[in-house]
């Protein structure tokens, strides 16, 4: 009899713990931010952190009535370090992981966040596997995917009536996958491939490759390079007037940050954009004003996407009114952000990828208070042209 009473008591306590446990002992909402704050992507990570800070300050650093505590960790532009830091953060009981920049790091971190069932917000990494083959219940991408970027590039090439494209592609998995998919898309648009070169990341001289491209008969040059290689290739391309010989375009190939590094040679370069500070939405105007007041500069696309993703996530957590991570995840998977910085964003339940518009811009000389090189939005692609319906 005594054992039976003890059993009932234990079961009651267990049930009560299950019900109220998530709400107990929560003195703060902990976010683990894993970003490259040094190394080749240091500038990107720092910009993301700045955008995230605005998202937190906008809500007085509180969610669910508790203060938000962000633990920033520097991944040092290394997947290995990103995994180590994420493991440490998860062991500290963070409620959300935010990051990374590199798709490889994000994919590795996703395995950890899935194991620990911790929500993971991705606002930059574009690899299709993040919301495709390797997708998890807990990882959400609020920014562009490779497929989305490819769709924009293909459409841009068609609208510009480009007949032949030469590809200079960073020799890594995402680069090769992206180029393969893009070639297939260009073929459906009757755009020929004049030639292709795969070059190691960190290549310090692009002049031979640019010379080959300019002699290939192509009227379009797809530069699919990353990090400092974007600056190297465009600087060296500007010296030989490559953009006067062919239309130069690519994914994340140009923005105000890169324009500052490349200089006047940036003018006329065409690129996909994840976000742009000139977007007219009320939320964006508010964000840009707050960002400028704090940092005295316009937000980059990395900052804009970080702000948008994190503020959307925290607003969703707030709506659940409780501390159950599973409920947060369910709510986010079904959420629509009607007033994101880029208009409406809708989270697709089938793959945890945010459906959204796509931006394409051309670098122009900035006037007035604008940066010396400023992106002018030349094309806005609707979500319906960029995303295939969930199957």
């Amino acid at each position, binding site marked *: 009899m005594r054992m039976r009473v003890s059993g009932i008591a234990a079961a009651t306590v267990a049930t009560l713990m299950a019900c109220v446990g998530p709400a107990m002992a929560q003195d703060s909402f902990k976010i683990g931010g894993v970003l490259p704050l040094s190394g080749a992507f240091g500038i990107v990570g720092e910009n993301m952190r700045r955008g995230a800070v605005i998202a937190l300050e906008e809500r007085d650093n509180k969610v669910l009535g508790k203060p938000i505590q962000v633990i920033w960790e520097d991944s040092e532009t290394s997947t290995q370090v990103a995994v180590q830091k994420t493991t440490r953060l998860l062991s500290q009981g963070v409620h959300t992981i935010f990051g990374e920049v590199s798709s490889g790091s994000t994919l590795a971190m996703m395995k950890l966040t899935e194991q620990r069932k911790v929500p993971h917000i991705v606002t930059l990494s574009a690899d299709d596997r993040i919301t495709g083959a390797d997708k998890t219940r807990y990882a959400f991408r609020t920014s562009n995917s490779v497929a989305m970027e490819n769709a924009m590039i293909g459409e841009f090439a068609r609208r510009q009536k480009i007949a032949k494209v030469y590809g200079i592609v960073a020799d890594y998995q995402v680069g090769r996958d992206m180029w393969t998919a893009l070639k297939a898309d260009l073929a459906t648009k009757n755009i020929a491939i004049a030639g292709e070169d795969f070059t190691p990341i960190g290549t310090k*001289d692009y*002049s031979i490759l640019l010379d080959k491209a300019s002699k290939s008969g192509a009227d379009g040059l797809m530069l699919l390079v990353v990090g400092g290689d974007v600056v190297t290739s465009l600087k060296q391309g500007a010296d*030989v007037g490559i953009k006067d010989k062919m239309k130069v375009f690519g994914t994340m190939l140009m923005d105000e940050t890169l324009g500052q590094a490349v200089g006047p040679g940036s003018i006329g370069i065409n690129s996909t954009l994840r976000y742009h500070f000139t977007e007219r939405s009320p939320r964006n105007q508010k964000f840009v004003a707050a960002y400028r007041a704090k940092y005295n500069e316009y937000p980059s696309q990395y900052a804009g996407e970080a702000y948008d993703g994190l503020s959307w996530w925290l607003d969703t957590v707030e709506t659940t009114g409780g501390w159950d991570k599973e409920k947060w995840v369910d709510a986010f998977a079904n959420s629509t952000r009607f007033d994101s910085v880029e208009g409406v964003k809708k989270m697709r339940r089938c793959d945890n990828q945010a459906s959204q518009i796509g931006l394409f811009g051309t670098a122009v000389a900035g006037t007035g208070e604008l940066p010396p090189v400023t992106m002018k939005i030349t094309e806005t692609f609707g979500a319906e042209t960029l995303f295939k319906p969930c199957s």
Partner: protein
Amino acid sequence: MSTLIIGLSISMLLFLLAAGLTLIFGMLGVINFAHGALYMLGAYLAFQAHATFGSFWPALIVSPLCLAAAGLAIERLTLRPLYPRTHEFQLLATFGLILVIEEVVRVVWGLDYRHLTPPPGLTGSVALFGSDIARYRLFVIGFGAAVIAALFFGIERTKLGLVLRAASVNPTMAATLGIDVNLVRSLVFALGAGLAGIGGTIAGPLLPIQLSMGFTIILDCFIVVVIGGLGNIKGAVFGALLIGMTRAFGQLYAPEWIDIATYVVLLAVLLVRPQGLFAAKERLA
């Protein structure tokens, strides 16, 4: 032929970057891991000088001079106490210098990319052998050749060069002959650091100026120096030409194999002549 010219420009840039490294090793016996960081600092100083004076040419003077002054201080404060010790101490000290220099640059200039433009007369390109070659590249070739000539002349044909060589081959004997060996060492390190400043300035208009630029270049410098023979200027010239041409023709025919081709050249040299192609034993301190 245009590939040859571009290859020559790559080679000269590599030489400018590796010259200081090999000079410091040849004369002092110090493997300066911080050479890449000094080169990065040189690029940032060049950017700052360009922003201040509004021209590339003052940057080409100011940056190497500042680096030479920094080199003097570094040698006096960190390396001189370590000469009697084994190489490991010097490696650790120069590695520590990397961290210090990177942190200084991060605090002063932040993480943003910086931009350096070539001087007005060296922008744009000229048509040569069916290709457009950037005028700045032709300048790099000429400037690199001038630095090679100056180094050879200075070390091989002047009294100062004789003193430098004497102090590096046998410092004790040199000291008994009245040569201030400590001063010579300081000057050599300052010259090596100044060359890093020249490398950073010359590379500025071609490459992104960013915090990690030194890390990515130091490997290339070591490849050039190892191929040529540690501490040998003639070897550094040959190593730079070999790697520069390998890269240029590699990009023409098989760009995805370019890194492998570079390491194959390095391995082949190490197998055939482990001490480097132009190693001069008597130069090693």
